[in-house]
C-alpha cells in the first residue's frame, strides 16, 4: 500500500465481531483528504458495519482508527461534528417541508440563525427549489430529494461526507448530476466516502476498495484495478473479485 500523504481517515487492523461472526476482519486502509473514495462490496460483505464505526455510531472490537483527526473510541462526538451522512433509505423528513429540513439539519450542526437564513437562500436558489420551499419532502421527486439531501449533508462544511448508496433508484440523468455535485464538493475540500451498486459510478472515484466477506480484497484507482484484473470495466473487476 502506498504511504498516506495527507490522510483524513486512517484504519489499522480494524476488527468488528458480532458474537463469533467476524463482520470486519482486520481492515487496514486510509482515505486521503479531498479524494472520492469508493467503498464497494457485495451485500453482506461488511460495508455498513465499517461505515457505522467510522461515523462514530458503533465501537470496533479492536484496531486503531482515526477519523478527521479524532479517535473512534473516545472522541466520537467530535467526529460527528466533522462529518456529514446521507443514505438512500433515510435522508430527510417526509413530513417537513424543504425549507424546514434545511433549517433542522443546520440547527443540529450548530449553525447560527443568521447564517442559516442566508445560506438557506443560496442553497434553494442553486438547486432551483426556491419556489417549492414550502412543499413537503414527500411531495417532491426522488431525484430532487436526493440532491437536497446531499446538500444538507454538507451544509455545515464537514471534513468528510459519508454517502451510503445515494443514487439507488434515481434516473440516469439525475444520477449523473448527483455525481457532478459530489465532484464540486471535493473542490471545496470535502472528502467523499461513498458506496454504490452502480459499477459505472465506481469509475468516478479517485480510489476504490472492494470488500469480500469482511476483508478488503483490492484497493486502487479504477484504472489500476482494471489493469490488475485484466478487465474492461469496473463491473468485470467486481464480478471477478466478489465471485471467487
Amino acid at each position, binding site marked *: 500500500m502506498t504511504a498516506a500523504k495527507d490522510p483524513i481517515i486512517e484504519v489499522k487492523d480494524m476488527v468488528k465481531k458480532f458474537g463469533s461472526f467476524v463482520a470486519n476482519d482486520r481492515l487496514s486502509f486510509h482515505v486521503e483528504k479531498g479524494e472520492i473514495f469508493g467503498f464497494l462490496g*457485495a451485500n*453482506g460483505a461488511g460495508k455498513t458495519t465499517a461505515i457505522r464505526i467510522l461515523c462514530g455510531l458503533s465501537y470496533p472490537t479492536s484496531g486503531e482508527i482515526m477519523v478527521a483527526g479524532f479517535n473512534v473510541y473516545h472522541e466520537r462526538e467530535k467526529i460527528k461534528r466533522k462529518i456529514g451522512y446521507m443514505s438512500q433509505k433515510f435522508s430527510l423528513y417526509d413530513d417537513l417541508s424543504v425549507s424546514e429540513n434545511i433549517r433542522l439539519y443546520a440547527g443540529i450542526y450548530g449553525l447560527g440563525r443568521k447564517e442559516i437564513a442566508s445560506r438557506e437562500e443560496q442553497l434553494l436558489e442553486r438547486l432551483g427549489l426556491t419556489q417549492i420551499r414550502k412543499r413537503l419532502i414527500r411531495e417532491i*421527486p426522488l431525484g430532487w430529494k436526493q440532491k437536497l439531501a446531499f446538500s444538507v449533508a454538507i451544509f455545515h462544511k464537514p471534513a468528510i461526507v459519508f454517502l451510503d448508496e445515494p443514487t439507488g433508484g434515481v*434516473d440516469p440523468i439525475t444520477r449523473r448530476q448527483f455525481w457532478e455535485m459530489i465532484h464540486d464538493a471535493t473542490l471545496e475540500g470535502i472528502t467523499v466516502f461513498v458506496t454504490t451498486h452502480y459499477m459505472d459510478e465506481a469509475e468516478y472515484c479517485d480510489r476504490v476498495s472492494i470488500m469480500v466477506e469482511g476483508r478488503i480484497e483490492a484497493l486502487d484507482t479504477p*484504472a489500476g484495478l482494471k489493469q490488475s484484473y485484466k478487465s474492461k470495466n469496473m463491473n468485470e473487476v467486481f464480478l471477478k473479485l466478489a465471485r471467487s
Partner: protein
Amino acid sequence: MSLILDHIDKSFETVKALKQVNFEVKEGELFGLIGPDGAGKSTLFRIMASLLVPDSGRCTMLGFDIDKEYRQVRQIIGYMPGRFSLYMDLSVEENLAFYARVFGTTVKENYDLIRDVYEQIAPFKKRLAGRLSGGMKQKLALSCALIHRPRILILDEPTTGVDAVSRREFWDMLKKIQGEGITTVVSTPYMDEAELCDRVALIQKGELLAVSDPSAMAEEGEKLLYSLRSGKGVYAYLEKVRQLEACKHAWLFGDRLHVTLRSEADATGVKKILDSWQDESLVWQSIVPSIEDRFMGLLQQESEVSSEQGEGI
C-alpha cells in the same frame, strides 16, 4: 398474447400515476419495464396482480380481466412485490410450504421448477425469513412466487439494492424460468439489465416513452453520439465540452464522456478543437448508443418539451 394493458389510466388524488399505458406481452416472453423510482412501475404491477383497478382502460392476463375475473388471474400469476412481503416469523421452509398450500399444491409437486433457486437457500431452511440476507430473501421470494407453477410471473424490482454479483445470478435464474415457458414481466432501475430482456418498455412519470427489443431501442437513439476518453481523466473536460457550441449534451459515462452533437456537420470542427487541447491521450470516437443513452435522450427531450410549456414539477 399473454397479457394486455389497454390504455391504462390511474390517479391517486391529484397525482396521475399512469397515463394511457398501452402494451402487450407475448407468451413466453421476458419483458422488462425500465424506469426510475416514482415512474409508476409498482402501480402498474399492482394492477397486473389484480390488487388495484385502473380508473380507465383494461388489463387482461391470459384473457382474464383483472377486475371482473380476479380469482382466475390470481391462480395463474406469481407476484413478487417490490417490498419483501413474506412472513418474517416463519422459517424459510414454512414460508414455502405455506405458499404452496394457499395455492392448493405441494412443494414436492413443483419442486423441479424451483430447484435451482431453492437449493441455494436450502442450507438455511430452518432459519426465520426475517433473518436472511438481502440476496437470500430475494431467492426465497422468487421460490414462493413460483411454487404454484404460474403461467405469468411478475417481479417488481427484484434486484434493487442488490449487488452486481447477485444481480447477475438472479438474471441467470430468470433465463432458466423462461425456458420453462413461463411469461415474465420484470421491472428494474438498472439500465444494463434491459439488454437481458426480449423486449423492454421505458417508463417515466407514468408514461411509456418507448417499447421495443433492446437492440432496436438503442439504435433508435441519438445518431450523433461520441465518446471522449483521456488518460488524464475526463471530469476536467466535462465543462469544457459542454461549452462547445456544437455540443448538445455531455454526460459522465463510466470512465468516459458521452457527447451528443447538434449536427453531423459539427463533427470535424469539434475534432479540430479537441486536437488544439494538446492531450495526446485523448480519444474521441463515434459510438453506438446503449439503452441508457437512449433513455437519457428521451428524458432530455421530455424535459425540453415541458420547460417550453412552462411546466414545473
